[in-house]
């Protein structure tokens, strides 16, 4: 826990909260800051950050939870593949609860389909190696934080000559949705830029957003002191009328990012348009498996393509992902839509905005 407790120190937190108040005193209006990473969403709730900052700073959550922005037909496709004989679906934990249009992977598991939660895609490759008669499919979901791992798993499978491993790929990238959100209905005054995504893509990746839209951007770590410091930096930029990329998380994030990981991503994936649940199609905001690695692409291997089904019309996840509404403003929130029975994307993952608001915001009773 050394190197963690240091970033949760109460006295330093009090000092940073003071800095935020001082910076905010220079503001002539309320400012709205958006975080676009699910881990920030959770941390802000878990540490009660909102209660520590002045009312003149409003925090909203953007489309940062990878599970939440994964389209329904992706789950339907996974369910469809799981139904085929001799298939094992492997996935990170959160995906098993995501409701598709008819079922969840959790329900499919209960009915006897082989669906395994793994901690690394390399475990899935090992499973494929041990069971050559079985098709092992990994659900590739997530941003640049997880995508390099999945790319490695594909490279590993090729190196080992494992033909029964494939990835159902729905990877998304930053910062494309940030540009889309900035040009949309919501009036934003700054971005709390993701921590670990930025470790891969680098702090410089946000320069176009900052320049094009005069948008303050601060790359911020996940610990409470990181978040408080990032907020102070954003408030100061807003008060001084600056719009720059600043890097609070410099102990991990470099301006140019992780070149090795970027190279692996380029080797295995190509940029593609992607469907974001609640936001629609965003050009060049996804990763697809490149032709060279075709035989590891589960969507081609199994040839399952399903249309995107309709969402519940009362669900306002799209507006929540854009930061236009807060979870309690949805009439499904907390009544029809709960973590036990999620209707919209934002309630699904523990990192989703609605799930976090429900869990830590006092709506649980």
């Amino acid at each position, binding site marked *: 826990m050394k190197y963690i407790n240091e970033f949760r120190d109460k006295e330093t937190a009090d000092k940073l909260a003071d800095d935020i108040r001082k910076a905010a005193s220079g503001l002539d209006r309320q400012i709205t800051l958006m975080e676009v990473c699910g881990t920030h969403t959770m941390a802000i709730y878990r*540490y009660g950050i909102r209660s520590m900052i002045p009312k003149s700073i409003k925090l909203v959550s953007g489309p940062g939870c990878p599970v939440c922005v994964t389209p329904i037909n992706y789950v339907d496709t996974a369910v469809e593949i799981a139904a085929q004989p001799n298939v094992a679906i492997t996935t990170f934990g959160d995906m098993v609860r995501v409701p598709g249009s008819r079922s969840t992977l959790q329900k499919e598991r209960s009915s006897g389909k082989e669906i395994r939660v793994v901690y690394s895609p390399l475990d899935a490759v090992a499973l494929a190696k041990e069971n050559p008669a079985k098709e092992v499919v990994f659900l590739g979901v997530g941003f640049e934080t997880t995508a390099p791992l999945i790319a490695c798993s594909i490279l590993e499978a090729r190196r080992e000559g494992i033909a029964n491993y494939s990835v159902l790929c729905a990877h998304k990238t930053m910062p494309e949705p940030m540009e889309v959100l900035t040009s949309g209905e919501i009036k934003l005054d700054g971005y709390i830029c993701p921590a670990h995504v930025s470790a891969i893509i680098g702090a410089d990746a946000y320069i176009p957003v900052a320049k094009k839209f005069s948008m303050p951007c601060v790359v911020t770590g996940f610990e409470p002191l990181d978040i408080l410091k990032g907020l102070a930096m954003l408030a100061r930029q807003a008060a001084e009328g600056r719009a720059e990329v600043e890097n609070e998380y410099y102990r991990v994030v470099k301006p140019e990012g992780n070149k090795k990981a970027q190279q692996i991503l380029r080797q295995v994936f190509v940029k593609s348009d992607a469907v974001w649940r609640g936001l629609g199609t965003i050009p060049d905001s996804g990763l697809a498996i490149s032709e060279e690695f075709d035989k590891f692409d589960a969507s081609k291997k199994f040839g399952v393509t399903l249309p995107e089904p309709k969402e519940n019309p009362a669900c306002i996840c799209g507006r929540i992902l854009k930061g236009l509404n807060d979870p309690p403003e949805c009439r499904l929130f907390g009544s029809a839509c709960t973590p036990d029975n999620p209707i919209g994307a934002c309630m699904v993952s523990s990192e989703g905005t609605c799930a976090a608001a429900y869990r830590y915001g006092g709506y649980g009773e």
Partner: protein
Amino acid sequence: MSSRADLVSLGHGSGGKLTHDLISKTIVPALYGADGAPPMEDSALLTIPGAWLSFTTDSYVVSPWAFPGGNIGDLAFNGTINDLAMSGAIPVALSVGLILEEGFPLADLRTVMRSMGQAARASGVPIVCGDTKVVPHGKADGIFINTSGVGYRPDGVQIHASGARPGDVVIINGTIGDHGIAVMSEREGLRFQSPIQSDTAALHTLARALLDGGVDAHVMRDPTRGGLATTICEIAADSGVAIRLDERAIPMATAVAGACELLGLDPMVVANEGKMVVVTPEKDVEKALAIMRAHPLGKLSAVIGRVEEGRAGRVSSASVVGGERMINMPHGEILPRIC
């Protein structure tokens, strides 16, 4: 002598000779050791002093059945003892019902029975009756155990889940999350540098020490499945009060905190099997802490929160950095089948 290759078979559940042999040769010697078993009757006869009979039951399906710091045997014994103890009762006797899956190694059954027997002898509470069934392969997960327990509550003891009053203080007897993380690390094959042991323990002597010491305990609860968050939410709801915790005051082993970081878990919802929450009036806090800290199971006892006026069931907490957050019961599958 049996070897690792000896497995539970369907015949062991037939009720005939094999069943008799399983009980008399495998279960009873392991469970009772040198003490020997009580006579085998259709039911046990108990004498219970006092006016209030306390009666409870619980089933254990933990997977894997063995984990650092214990196994399903001592867990099943201690869990039921604790349910009796938390209502202020003095445990008198327990029953044990086994559901075995065909193919479960007899050596493993012996291990489980031995640790259950050791827990029984250490606690001074006997196991007085039991039952064994065998189900076909695939119909259970190795071994399931049900334990029921009876006890009596002396006159004058008033402990209820609804007993918390504004102004009361919330105390816990030690670190949270140990059991859940021990099981989780075993199940997922996670190897931590310092292995985390389950905290499974029988809490009846600690509970007794508080009551005998004259502590006016309004509520005693053991925060098992669902963790501390669930228990505190239940107490607040049942008592019609609000509770405010201070996260910085909640004891936690460094290894557990680290594992929770790694796994993305909130330690407040991770299971415990040897912890108790005591809600007591301010006037008794020092006395309660002194008694608890003098007990082997309460060395790290600490005040972790206060009962307040407010919306019934509202539980909030000061976060480690001083921010204010709400605490809810966890939803759905967090750590499946951990007790």
